[in-house]
């Protein structure tokens, strides 16, 4: 079994839906069970990325915010 990896996506300064689009593109390159940490500055991602995850079967593991940055960690669902 392939070991799960964790990658980081820098989506700072991008406004929605671009962080969602970049997340979508990055997830295409990952495997089920891999984790992706997305770092953003648009507060809209706190709604949009979880919504995108829900409709596409991915899991939000953690959300954090502070100092005008928003960090979301997701786990890639079944493809």
């Amino acid at each position, binding site marked *: 079994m392939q070991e799960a990896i964790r990658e980081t996506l820098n989506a700072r300064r991008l406004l929605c839906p671009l962080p969602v689009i970049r997340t979508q593109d990055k997830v295409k390159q990952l495997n089920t069970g891999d984790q992706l940490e997305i770092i953003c500055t648009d507060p809209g991602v706190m709604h949009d990325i979880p*919504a995108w995850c829900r409709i596409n079967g991915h899991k939000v593991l953690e959300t954090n915010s502070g100092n005008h940055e928003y960090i979301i960690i997701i786990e890639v669902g079944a493809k």
Partner: protein
Amino acid sequence: MSKQRKAVALISGGLDSMLAAKIVMEQGVHVEGINFFTGFCVEGHTHAIRAQDNAKPNRNNALWVAEQLGIKLHIVDVIQEYKKVLINPKHGYGTHMNPCLDCKIFMVNKAKQWIVENDFDFIITGEVIGQRPMSQTKSKMPIVAKQSGADDLLLRPMCAKNLPATKPELEGWVDREKLHDITGRSRKPQIEMAKQFGIDDYSQPAGGCCFLTDKYYSAKLVDLWKAQGDKDYELDDIMLLKVGRHIRPKPNFKLIVAREEGEGRFLQGYKKEFISMHCSSHPGPLTLIDGEMSAEDLYFAARVVARYAQGRDEDQVDITITQKDGSERIIQVKPFSKAEVLNEWHV
């Protein structure tokens, strides 16, 4: 057993495309959504930038619609490809810089490519005859179908009964009798249909979902093209047109003055690409300077910046000028009076 048919619905985030997708889903077709991001979409942007808009729901309506319908949504970045649509629209512009007909043809064409690549059967749009003067008239509907290459694979469930039958109808993939014949600009039939489907929360943006239909945004875009001498643009250019006061006192430079805290924070992110100014002796907004300037122009711009600071009535204020490399210097200027900042400078 008959094959499970699959359709992709163009989802804008508004009610019509939501209903169109729902109508086809009700007939047992597998539907997924597609949303194209041109860079001019109203969705998400300004409320994300402006702190004072935080009371509004920070949601992307296309994603929200997809979640309500229980379908997947594919958001496609078409920023680069969209340039040729906007810069040279075959069918021209609408009232402002909106190339609506070319835009619709472009998006349906992209959806056609998508269904071929993903083995889907047809395309759904929420178009209604007579809803929009430029792209949604009875005479324009066949143009969109033909010039996009979608032809009879393009189904408009909201007004299908007023149009020739398409392949999904002729082949029995959907029942034409269960489609609709809505025309005109009234929203009553859509609101009634939403009620029947149990949909009670939906977005109905008054000015549509595109900044290019906005008079003031269009004026800024035209100004940008005029100043740079060609019609090209990058994403940052068109994002900045959504933010701040744009003031062009002279043809060779423009000031972008933050109107509130959220915009100021957003403009901070551009300090490595633009010379910036702020009043350092009194509270005042961050301002980006776009253009090539002489020392005299810089002084002139500083007086404009001073006008928007709290020391606007003082004889002299300090303005900090920050170069792209981060180096700073402070100059003392007398703020322009209200009358000296001419109305025609405001883009």
